[in-house]
């Protein structure tokens, strides 16, 4: 999966978690916590959705890598290279 596709995957997950949010103006460099006020329960949900949808495992020590869209895509690119977009 290419970085742009991974970005779409994350947008899909965020749309699912926060259906009332307008994500078209999401800024990739700014932390999700700051822009969307996601809390630790929400971050855990992103991790669990990745496991559910793509069998990608994110170990707890790597959670800080999911802080912003940019860091998430960078972190997931090597892990999701063999995943197929659904």
């Amino acid at each position: 999966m290419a970085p742009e596709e991974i970005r779409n995957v994350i947008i899909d997950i965020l749309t699912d978690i926060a259906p009332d949010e307008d994500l078209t103006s999401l800024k990739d460099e700014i932390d999700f916590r700051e822009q969307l006020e996601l809390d630790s329960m929400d971050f855990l949900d992103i991790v669990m959705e990745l496991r559910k949808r793509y069998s990608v495992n994110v170990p707890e020590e790597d959670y800080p890598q999911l802080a912003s869209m940019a860091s998430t895509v960078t972190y997931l690119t090597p892990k999701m290279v063999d995943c197929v977009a659904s």
Partner: protein
Amino acid sequence: MYDTIIIGAGMSGLAAGIRLAHYDQKVCILERHYTIGGLNSFYRMNGRDYDVGLHAVTNFTAKGARKGPLARILRQLRFKWDDFALAPQKGSRIAFPNTELRFDNDIDLLRSEIKQTFPSQVDNFEALLEKISDYDDLDQAAFELSGRKVLEETISDPLLIEMILCPLMWYGNAAEHDMAWGQFCIMFRSIFIEGFARPFKGVRLILKNLVKRFRGLGGELKLRSGVKTIHVDGDQAVCVELDTGEQIQGKRILSSAGNLETLRLCSDTSEPDPRSAGQLTFIESISILDRQPESIGNSDTIVFYNDSDKFHWERPTDGLCDTRTGVICSPNNYEYSDEDGNLTDGVVRITTIADFDRWNALSPEDYQREKLRWYDRSVAESIKYTPDFRAFVIDTDLFTPTTISRFTWHDNGAVYGAPAKVLDGTTHLKNVFLCGTDQGFVGIIGAMMSGISMANLHCLRP
């Protein structure tokens, strides 16, 4: 074999079920009653819809808010704000003899009321707000401090302390007289800082959305399926046995039956000490009016009243009920959308403290007679604090502690469960966990939060 068996199809069990089914667990919710909802259920009588528990959904935050328990449960359960369609309150009151405080969903109204009525307490009230904002939710030691003690250290006018405690105890205190500091903070935020709201269609809208989602995710819901025994082998549960004798196997059990009630189901435990059960239960009368309450001068959403300067939060010492304190709720007095208009009937609900044992001991004939008698007495007391509506009543109902016990299965029909809360939801068995009232969160949003957090903590860890 289920991944998780959930006992109880109330708000906490349904919310937990949605979380688990969403993450592909095989889940079964077992409900003893013939309907869902537990304390927050609903029924139909004489062609009218009634709610059982709901006066107000607390923890209200407006659409678009990202913080607070409501926003959090919506994200966790993948609902849109509009799915719960909450209309905010018009305004409420705390009414004591000669003194009242109005409040609504903006803390500034309460602030200005305190400034006017208790001018010497303005700074102390700000100090209290500071302490509440510093309180950490999951700290069991801080949770168990005496709420009254912290209040006495912060506020120097005893009447203001009693008036602040009155709505908070009424909407979520399982213990008599005093309130745990943690419970106080949770209730203060949910009522005074966040606030009250109600779906136009009542609690059934929320419940129907929860059940539809749960079933849509493949969850199974079995009504009329009371659990008789949780069979235990060593340090874990192996299966549950229903009243019918049917055995159902699960890897783990999440129970909203209550702490003592769950322990009593376990085959390895002796009868728990009944003195640790909750004692506070209510009667509630529902009066249907032929007009809107507002047309007779009642525009309050909720009124919390008390007949003296000292607030009485205790089981009645004699008699079936204690009407010195009570709550008046008018579900018409919410800001419903223009599209919805208002409820067809006027409704006034009066809640007052009752004694489970005395109600439970009545013969069927006495029970019916006492219901009529206490309807009259509780309404007569309430009209000291709200315009007299008795001439406009076209239908009535009254539910009692035994009704509450039938819906919730809690010992003594204790509305807020046992005084001792188990914040981490653990039991003596490594695969049996608690959610719901006895885990510590109350109210509709709180109960859902309890189910979600216990499901996340104990049932979804890889």
